[in-house]
């Protein structure tokens, strides 16, 4: 029988726990380990979290209506994503997984473009250079190496360490707690450390990799992994948008200045099932989820904003109107996403279509034009 490893110490004392500025009750506190950014737009952070949650809710509804094949919900992770994204400079490059709808939103992507992949009308959906937000990556861990390579390019472009804020650039790459177990992710850590690359690994430890609790992957916190490679790991309350923003800002600044990589662990929770195709009831008790819902990232900022008098009722009403507009936009946009034409599978496989592929395309177009289809029509 396997002996149980010593369980990692619970965050009994505050200074051992994840960095936190905003308590679940909405109180703003300081943390000796990290400073808050000088300028903070709390209403904007709240607004983005609220809109992103609505985006998510609407996509789930669209999936239920059969408009999407699948949707990976970000519910519960709004603070992690919006906080991290608010720390980005325009020139920074983002490498997401498949759940970073909140980051996409903050990067300015039309949220309708996120739906194509899950509706089955596209394999991508946006130009990764336009908003400096790369395509979603479904193969766990693969994007971490792309981020590292991109960061190698930044080094060669002298795009770090100049002191010029509009020039110095970093890479922000997202990954899940499960992704920490893939070999490729660890190779990315090796490269980033040995070459001191300007890359920030932002891990949303949402406690689950589909049905696997984090204990299946590791017996120590995510952030500790970095120490084995010799670069800093930071653990923050992933439901505290300020902690996520501050830690990411700090790490990105270090990366841009030539100070090398950081691994950020945002401790949060996947409130919904893995995707709309998953049934979380099979592997986890609802009670734990309820505990996390009590730590809701939006609620605590709402409490703080209300208590501090920074915003009024109209602020929330305005957000609600924008939520409705967003939902309308998503519903309409989703249904009018163009179904790709029969030639589209053949296009862009190569920069120039090889002759043989051209023959296959010609045959395929003829087949489709003849009105035949996959089933038997004769």
């Amino acid at each position: 029988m396997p002996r149980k490893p010593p369980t990692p110490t619970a965050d009994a004392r505050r200074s051992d726990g994840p960095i936190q500025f905003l308590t679940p009750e909405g109180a703003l506190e300081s943390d000796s380990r990290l400073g808050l950014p000088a300028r903070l737009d709390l209403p904007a952070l709240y607004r983005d979290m609220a809109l992103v949650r609505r985006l998510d809710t609407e996509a789930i509804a669209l999936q239920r209506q059969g408009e999407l094949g699948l949707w990976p919900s970000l519910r519960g992770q709004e603070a992690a994503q919006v906080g991290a994204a608010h720390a980005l400079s325009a020139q920074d490059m983002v490498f997401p997984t498949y759940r970073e709808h909140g980051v996409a939103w903050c990067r300015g992507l039309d949220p309708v473009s996120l739906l194509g992949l899950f509706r089955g009308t596209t394999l991508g959906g946006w130009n990764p250079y336009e908003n400096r937000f790369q395509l979603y990556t479904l193969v766990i861990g693969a994007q971490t190496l792309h981020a590292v390579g991109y960061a190698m390019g930044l080094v060669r472009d002298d795009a770090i360490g100049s002191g010029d804020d509009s020039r110095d650039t970093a890479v922000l790459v997202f990954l899940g707690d499960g992704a920490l177990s893939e070999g490729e992710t660890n190779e990315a850590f090796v490269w980033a450390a040995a070459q001191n690359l300007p890359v920030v690994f932002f891990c949303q430890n949402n406690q689950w990799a589909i049905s696997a609790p984090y204990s299946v992957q590791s017996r120590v916190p995510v952030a500790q992994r970095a120490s084995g490679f010799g670069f800093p790991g930071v653990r923050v309350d992933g439901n505290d948008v300020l902690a996520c923003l501050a830690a990411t800002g700090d790490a990105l600044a270090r990366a841009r200045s030539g100070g090398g990589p950081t691994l950020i662990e945002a401790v949060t929770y996947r409130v919904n099932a893995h995707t709309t195709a998953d049934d979380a009831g099979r592997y986890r008790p609802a009670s734990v989820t309820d505990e996390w819902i009590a730590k809701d990232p939006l609620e605590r900022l709402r409490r703080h904003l209300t208590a501090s008098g920074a915003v009024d009722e109209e602020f929330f009403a305005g957000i609600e109107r924008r939520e409705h507009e967003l939902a309308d936009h998503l519903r309409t946009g989703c249904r009018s996403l163009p179904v790709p034409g029969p030639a589209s599978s053949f296009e862009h496989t190569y920069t120039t279509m090889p002759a043989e592929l051209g023959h296959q395309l010609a045959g395929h177009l003829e087949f489709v034009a003849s009105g035949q289809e996959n089933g038997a029509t004769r």
Partner: protein
Amino acid sequence: MSMPGISMVKALNNGLRRALQDDPKVLLMGEDIGRLGGVFRVTDGLRKEFGSLRVVDTPLGEAGIVGAAIGLALRGYRPVCELQFDGFVYPAANQIISQLAKLRHRSGGAITLPVVIRIPYGGGIGSIEHHSESPEVHFAHTAGLKVVTCSSPQDAYDMIRQAVAADDPVIFLEPKRHYWSKGDVTDEPPAPLERARVTRPGTDATLIAYGPTVPVALAAADVAAGEGRSVEVVDLRSLSPLDMDTVRESVHRTGRALVAHEASLSHGFGAELAARIQQEEFHFLEAPVLRITGYDTPYPPSRIESDWLPGVDRILDALDRSMSY
């Protein structure tokens, strides 16, 4: 035991349960196969029945799954791995191709690696990218591996048990779009794992299929029958080794051969079949071997996958071409 009208998922589940019961050295491992019962529920209930040491929820890493399975086999176990989807097999390529396939040979027979790698594969279920791939050729081209695929609940039940009992490493491909097709399953002694099957006899042409394309081929043969053409359908079942005897015998009789698979045309499984048939039946072929396959492109977005996949109409068109030679 008779299991009337069960799905392929259930048949695999029953087969795995039997395998676990029959041999204490059998264990299952993979991502989400325990508590969840697998994303397709193939291992549903087995963790509860056999415990977490025999039905193992693994960390997220395919090289790890196959590499650890090799180590378990070296210790005398018979691990059955699940790789969650076809598109996630590549991180394990090194362990499968350079290690699993070769170790027995390298050791001069001292090492036996009875490892099964189950892979839900193929398209047609409206999935997202990397979830509809057909990687069979990578394995069939690798000496030392057996590669098999089932097309009915009965075969699923029999073949998974035979694969677990086999002393060579077996890549076990499960056509996920037929997971929910139902059929009666009995406990009759099955045909050998390496044997192809003539699923529907015919005289005008031989239509070779495996896994996901078998029901499509049968449907095409049905329509062809209505048009007065008698098509013999061969279900290969084993892709490596390949049962050329059954294929040859059929083509020898019909003089015409067609192959249908989902993987891309170029260097797809049909290439090897065509190469062998044209060589071994050179004087008896009345038409070239024709291939109805996926195209030489990445698998398309799901809204247009049905046109991309080899369907009944494309098979019938190829049959027309074959008959017109």
